[in-house]
């Protein structure tokens, strides 16, 4: 029983990372009906910034964390305004290509600046397990789960309780009405990109201590994030988190109890992704109409 509980907790920790990147995907998707294929690379780049702040400038972890999140926020806004904006009204194919271009550039730039040799990334949370009612959990895992939930909480507070968050949602769903009410729709989309990249930065910083820091580090995580976002409903922030956490737990349980499937967990996630897309595109918690194609 405790073994099961333990698998669930570490599944939640992995799922928290998928969830935060999935949340980033959902934020952009809800703002403009676009899946940002470069989201993982943005996260990786921000994580390198955090690493540079810690290692080169000797800043404390917390400051570097904030710095990288702010960097992600700013970079998201700038990229949306400078690169994505001219294509806002273009077809999905063109938008996909633009995000793939950003993918390549972010990946290559990181490689050019920091190289492709994996680097250890510090974590202030000890991995030594503590016992919670017989279940051994590491502080590291608890921190990942906790931070994911805090991020989700902050984002939903922002979207529902603040004037700007309200305007952001209106701009995404009803651009014409929103602009008639004085909302600068273009800037709201940029704000969506900024928020998404900031949230993505968090996921990068959380996963880096586990998988090491290098330019290709997010390419596994982004797949799980896609699956999580689609599973939860690609336009639902809560769905992203639910999808991410349940995916993490499910994959961990498969790994522990069905050894034949242990090394095709990626395949399982992708199969799930395709099945949900074909059978129930709205996911678990998304809006059931899929008019935006």
């Amino acid at each position, binding site marked *: 029983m405790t073994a099961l509980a333990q698998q669930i907790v570490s599944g939640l920790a992995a799922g928290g990372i998928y969830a935060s990147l999935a949340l980033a995907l959902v934020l952009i998707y809800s703002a403009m009906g676009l899946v940002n294929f470069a989201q993982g690379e943005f996260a990786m780049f921000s994580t390198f910034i955090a690493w540079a702040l810690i290692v080169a400038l000797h800043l404390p972890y917390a400051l570097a964390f904030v710095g990288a999140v702010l960097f992600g926020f700013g970079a998201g806004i700038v990229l949306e305004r400078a690169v994505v904006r001219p294509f806002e009204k273009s077809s999905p194919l063109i938008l996909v290509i633009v995000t793939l271009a950003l993918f390549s550039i972010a990946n290559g730039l990181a490689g050019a600046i920091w190289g492709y040799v994996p680097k250890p990334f510090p974590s202030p949370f000890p991995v030594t397990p503590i016992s919670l009612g017989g279940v051994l959990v590491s502080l590291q895992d608890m921190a990942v789960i906790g931070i994911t939930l805090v991020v989700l909480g902050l984002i939903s507070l922002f979207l529902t309780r603040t*004037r700007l968050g*309200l*305007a952001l*949602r*209106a701009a995404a*769903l*009803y651009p*014409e*009405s*929103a*602009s*008639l*009410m*004085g*909302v*600068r*729709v273009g800037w709201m989309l940029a704000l969506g990109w900024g928020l998404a990249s900031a949230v993505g930065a968090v996921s990068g910083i959380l996963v880096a201590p586990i998988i090491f820091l290098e330019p290709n580090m997010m390419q596994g995580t982004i797949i799980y994030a896609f699956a999580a976002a689609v599973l939860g409903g690609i336009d639902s922030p809560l769905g992203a988190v639910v999808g991410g956490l349940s995916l993490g737990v499910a994959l961990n349980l498969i790994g522990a109890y069905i050894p034949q499937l242990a090394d095709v967990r990626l395949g399982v996630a992708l199969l799930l992704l395709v099945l949900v897309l074909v059978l129930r595109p709205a996911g678990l918690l998304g*809006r059931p109409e899929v008019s935006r194609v």
Partner: protein
Amino acid sequence: MPLLELNGLQAWYGQRHVLHGVDISVEEGQIVALLGANGAGKTTTLRSISGMVSRSGQMCFNGRPLSRAPADETARLGIAHVPEGRGTMGQMSVLENLRLGAYVRRDRKNVAGDFRRVFEYFPWLAQRQKQAAGTLSGGEQQMLAVGRALMSRPKLLLLDEPSLGLAPLVVRSIVEIVATINRTDGVAVLLVEQNAALALNVAHQAYVLESGRVVLSGKADELSKNESVRRSYLGY
């Protein structure tokens, strides 16, 4: 100087030239009715004012040129446009619709007072604050749209066919509320309305549009006596 002055306004949808020089002026505190057959360009005129179509010509609002202003800027200048089809944000709650109406307000302290005022005009809205706006009836959505526009404390209200698809009784009450708002708050109104009798009844001035041009204009009570207006729009 009038609050809004349009001089030789032209407008296009892509290649399609729709307005061919429209001259209209709206004085402060006035209600101006804009009449015309289907496709005459009434909606396009309103959309030109609020910056939702590409247009040219001289447009002056409150002493400032409008010709380049996009929709969000005209809203900040004090023009509230209730579009054809109401522009309801259906997935958001009634309260959120109203809060967005107040998005441009700088004097946030007074917004609470405006909520109270809107709920006085439309008392049933107060009980439905949490309801998704899309689940309101057509008439209710129209009133919500007017309430939302009021929340921005506009100087000029652009109303596009508030009566579309509504029961006669509801139409009357919406138009009456608009007249009340105009009297008590001094908000100027540019009203597009198919029910010409009703519109001319509350309006001070009126314009008749035909194929993208103004063909008639004058005081509302004079126009309602005009032979051709009576035949074409009033039906007697």
